[in-house]
């Protein structure tokens, strides 16, 4: 039956392999070279310049600003998204009314085009025609913003102190339902006996969540965390569309992805942009490996 198997193997592998090598592997490999050149995209003779791009990056305030913004997202977006979605998932698995309806609604932002969401939210935040500012006025929340040191309700995307938070909030808004469905699937795999036994012993719902649900969800939580971390290092489409490619007031929402796009496709500094991309890749890889390692071994089986 396997006599002529190579007559099948070779033609079946060829198209996938050819496309993959040409459009994925070759560009990744070539980037590792371009990052060490001063290429501006015009001349055929590419000048090798060693570590000059990386030295320049070290002294580039805009690079540090963009990296800082990625780290700000990293500090609150994964925690907020996972915390909220875990909470929603736990409540929806507790036999509440309309749980099917809630599940459908909560997941929907995940299937909407991220560009449509970005444009929509940039108008929700819009200072003159947006809906958020009038809503907060109706709820009489202006004094709260004075307390926080703003002069009334801020201009959201127009204010460097709030712009980044506004974009981050959209990420949480979009992603919470997705992670919720992920967690609900894992929660439904936990045998009901565990909860029943705990209930007989007089455990409260809070205890069940912390002592049963959370430890048994560990693997799913790790996967979700990695997903969310990768997201915090991307942020490209929302940033581009919510700030119309201007990266907010004073680059307040500029991230590495948008900065390297600007360096490459607006300023034609292809070598430098690729060096930023290489650094971005190494950082994402390091952080992913560290967080996977740090959360290992605590897995429970059931």
């Amino acid at each position, binding site marked *: *039956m396997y006599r002529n198997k190579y007559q099948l*193997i070779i033609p*079946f*592998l060829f*198209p*996938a392999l050819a*496309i*993959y090598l*040409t*459009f*994925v*592997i*070759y*560009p*990744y490999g070539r*980037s590792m070279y371009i990052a060490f050149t001063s290429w501006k*995209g015009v001349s055929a003779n590419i000048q090798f310049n060693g570590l000059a791009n990386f030295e320049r990056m070290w002294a580039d305030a805009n690079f540090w600003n963009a990296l800082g913004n990625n780290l700000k997202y990293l500090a609150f977006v994964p925690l907020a998204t996972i915390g909220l979605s875990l*909470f929603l998932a736990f*409540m929806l698995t507790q036999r*509440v009314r*309309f749980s099917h309806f*809630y599940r*459908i*609604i*909560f*997941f*929907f932002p*995940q*299937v909407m*085009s991220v*560009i*449509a969401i970005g*444009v929509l939210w940039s*108008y*929700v935040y819009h200072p003159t*025609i947006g*809906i958020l500012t009038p809503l907060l006025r109706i709820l009489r929340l202006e004094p709260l913003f004075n307390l926080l040191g703003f002069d009334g309700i801020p201009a959201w995307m127009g204010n460097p102190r709030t712009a980044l938070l506004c974009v981050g909030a959209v990420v949480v*808004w979009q992603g919470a*339902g*997705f992670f919720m*469905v*992920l967690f609900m699937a894992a929660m439904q795999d936990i045998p009901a006996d565990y909860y029943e036994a705990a*209930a007989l012993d007089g455990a409260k719902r809070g205890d069940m969540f912390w002592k049963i649900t959370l430890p048994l969800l560990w693997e799913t939580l790790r996967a979700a965390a990695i997903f969310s971390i*990768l997201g915090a*290092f*991307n942020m*490209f*489409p929302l940033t*581009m569309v919510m700030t*119309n*490619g201007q990266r907010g007031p004073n680059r307040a929402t500029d991230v590495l*992805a948008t900065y390297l*796009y600007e360096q*490459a*496709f607006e300023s034609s500094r*292809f070598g430098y942009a690729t060096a930023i*991309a290489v650094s*971005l*890749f190494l950082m994402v*890889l390091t952080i992913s490996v560290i967080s996977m390692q740090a959360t290992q071994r605590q897995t429970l089986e059931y």
Partner: protein
Amino acid sequence: MRYDQAGWLSRSITNIVLALWAIIVMFPMGWLIFSSFKTDQEIFFGPWALPESLQWNNFARAWSDARIGEYFINTLLVIVPAIFLTLLVASMAAYVIARFPFPGNRVLFYFFLAGMLFPVFLALVPLFFLLRDIKLLNTFSGLILVYIAYSLPFTVFFMTGFFRTIPSAFHEAAIIDGANQYQVFFRIMLPLAKSGLISMAIFNFLGMWNQYILPLILISKSDNYVLSQGLAFLSLQQRYENDWSGLFAAITLIMIPTLVVYIIFQGQIQKGLTAGALKG
């Protein structure tokens, strides 16, 4: 499950939190749909009022003047062949990797898997110049090839797992009945893998539908814009022209088909997307 005295209170809190989040999720979309039926004056002066009369011409303007119709067709012209070819090419490779032992089989599997490790930003610059050099910038075929290429790692990975679960008895029976290897694949294996193919079609559809960075660098002629790109461009333009009602109508037009598809297939979509996340 038994509830104690505090059960009533905690259930009320649960219901309030869930309802509140449902409002937060639906509110911007509801506002968008109402606004897309209003005039610009109504949007500006009465954010809370219902539209006085339904401005259907907002949608006509968005569809033709703002070219949403053209972008829509462009998107379909790219996505439909890209998904079809991704499924075909990836299934062929996955089938061979899953069911035929040959030297380098494992290595090849991990080689495809490695593609998921890298952020697409790392490839942008060489990819742009590669497509320029082979004269595929600004073409649908260029974008289709690139979409297939970046969908391959996960689709091959997923389909390999899928083909491994199909019992080899099917295969052997078909060979005994005189089918050749190609017939076995196209007539037996692909139909058996249907549910995996549907999951991957949904997964890749949403990925390609949402794709923004790749068309942004590979398509610069506005005649060839895809939807995500066209909408981003429109949003930038409307900032100066202030045709808000037209822009809202455009976003609604883009949202409606997704909403319809989602309501019909929501079970499969949720399963497909989250299974993708877990196994990835």
